[in-house]
């Protein structure tokens, strides 16, 4: 199963908020939609689920027009909401039946997911009596109760503590392993990095970067190295590299542990290392730069996530 989103455009009250968003994702893989608040992630997901209609653009599944009503989809919207005054099991069975399950099948599946998310003891409780974190888990269980082939999660980690986040991470990993197609958005880059095969960074309604995460990281790390010294602070080391003029590099960035350097002219790693060894710099760390998703995001979007 391959989902392709092509050139989506959407305006609200005359203002275009999506300017041709495109991406694709396949079964057994997860796509992370990244972007700052208001970038257009939720609007894109709502168009996918036909909550809104796009002004133009196309969404296809295996080359055919995508009709969410005809597919088994688990959707966790950004605006969480179920029936607060009704029992957990009742509303889960209701949603599963609306997705085509028989009462018995719906009940068994609801119990299965409540157990998997470790909230089975709340089965007969009214939703409003549960903590926010547990309500969030019930919401996720309701999303998965119909055993969907495609899972669309909008900010699934929001409101979860570290323990519950770990449970959710495990569940998402299991879904990917079970060859489900997963699309999710998040601000938390570490989660995206852990189980997303591909990403699409949306900024101001446009996809500014997309593709295979490993390829993107490789590309962003190309011709970039890291360096720190025992006898220089990072600021002094940076000044030395720039002012001496002996090193064909530009200081590209700085973390609290090292500088990132970008090669200015053709020079190999060994040549640079040789030059450093023959200087008064006592090397503490030197190696190939492997950017984090956060670094890539900041570079593309221009601010901290």
């Amino acid at each position: 199963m391959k989902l392709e989103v092509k050139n989506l455009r959407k305006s609200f009250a005359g203002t275009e908020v999506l300017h041709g968003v495109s991406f694709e994702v396949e079964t057994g893989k997860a796509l992370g939609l990244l972007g700052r608040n208001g970038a257009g992630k939720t609007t894109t997901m709502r168009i996918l689920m036909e909550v809104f209609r796009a002004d133009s653009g196309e969404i296809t599944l295996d080359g055919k027009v995508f009709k969410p009503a005809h597919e088994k989809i688990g959707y966790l919207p950004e605006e969480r909401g179920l029936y607060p005054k009704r029992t957990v099991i009742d509303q889960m069975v209701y949603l599963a039946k609306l997705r085509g399950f028989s009462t018995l099948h719906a009940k068994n599946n609801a119990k299965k997911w409540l157990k998997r998310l470790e909230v089975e003891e709340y089965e007969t409780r009214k939703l409003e009596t549960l903590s926010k974190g547990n309500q969030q888990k019930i919401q996720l269980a309701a999303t998965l109760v119909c055993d969907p082939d495609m899972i669309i999660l909008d900010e699934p980690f929001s409101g979860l503590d570290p323990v519950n986040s770990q449970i959710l991470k495990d569940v998402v990993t299991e879904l990917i392993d079970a060859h489900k197609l997963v699309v999710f958005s998040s601000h938390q880059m570490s989660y995206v990095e852990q189980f997303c095969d591909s990403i699409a960074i949306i900024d101001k309604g446009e996809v500014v970067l997309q593709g295979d995460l490993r390829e993107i990281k490789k590309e962003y790390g190309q011709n970039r190295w890291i360096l720190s010294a025992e006898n220089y602070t990072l600021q002094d080391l940076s000044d030395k590299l720039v002012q001496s003029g002996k090193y064909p590099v530009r200081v590209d960035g700085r973390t609290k542990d090292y500088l990132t350097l970008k090669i200015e002219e053709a020079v190999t790693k060994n040549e640079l290392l040789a030059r450093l060894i023959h200087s008064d710099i006592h090397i503490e760390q030197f190696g190939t730069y492997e950017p984090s998703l956060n670094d890539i995001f900041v570079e593309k979007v221009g601010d901290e996530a």
Partner: protein
Amino acid sequence: MRKFLIVLQYELKEYVRNRSFVIITLLLALVGGLVLFAPRVIDMSGFLGRSSWQEEDTAAVEEGEEGMMLLYDSEGLIDREMLKRVFPNITWIEADSTDAIKDKINREEAQAGFHVISYTEFEYYVFNSSLYSDESAYFEAVLSASMRQAYFEANNLNGDELEALFDTPITVNEQILGKDSTDNYWYSYVLVIVVFMLIVFYGQMIAVSVTNEKSNRAIEILVTTTTPNSLLFGKVIAGAVAGLCQVGVVLGAVLISYQINRELWGGMLDMLLNIPSDVLITFALFGIGGYLFYAFLYGAMGALVSKTEDISKSSSGLMIMIMVVYFITLMQLGNVDGVAMKVLSFLPISSYSAMFVRIAMGTVAMWEIMVSFVILVASIFAAGFMGARIYRMGTLRYGNPIRLTTALKELRKSK
């Protein structure tokens, strides 16, 4: 259809599980039923003894109120003895002028006063005129009888014989070939009020149930899981069925209890509770049709707002329309075959009461009933589909209520 039935079942289950809904239904049915069993355990002969309004009136005259009245009759035209017989508990004081009458009444020393000018004219003085006071009418009758008596005596006629001749009882055998409006009036009146209450009370409940889905944010999950038509139709019909069940249980308990105890009540409540089956069938068809029509409109009004406290704002126009129809229908009950009722009986906003009343009390052709019912059914579906589109359009539009005109414009644009 399957999804509609799932929504209907889920929503109905919630009504059945709602303890206050069930308790109120049973309590109302129990109270209604028990009141009608009252003659079996309580002596109600004082209350049930009256068999007609005529008897009540006579009793009022015979017993009368105790008090004092003034009479200024300088020519002695009125028969004093007859006056005492008709007003047995009244002490009559002779006055010598109208000023004396006014003075005593103003000081509240007498309850009323009469100045007899001639056999055909008198003045009646009273401090505050009561809506139900019949003193003047009885006085007029005595004066008229006094005039006749004087004429008989002047012409040497046998007054008793002539009075008996005038008062010979006539037997009337009324054969109503159409409908007896007098009989049907009261239950038509009651049933119009019942539908009005059904629409206003349960319509509001349905609007709240729709708005709740927006306020608790469940709407996004629902519209991505099933169609808005299934959701709105399921929700509205569940509310309508629950409302009808509640009213049905209460009315059923009252009607059955009355049938069991009808003899003990002496048929006193027949005009309200002994409703013929054809009237009930008409009521079921048009009453329930109108109720469903308004239920869908209330559902649509609920979709225009995202907070339950805003529902009254969005549904105020609907409420005014229902009230206008209600008052016009009640005012026209005495003229059910008039133009106003004929027009109202074809409009879906009013046929639920106007056509029902015309059938119960007036003359109406079968084709008129059929046309009106077809218009009503088509309007129910139109209201349902339009409501579902408004419901879908209102998805994720939180904040200020959406105006109905804005919603309709957007629906037209999105076609």
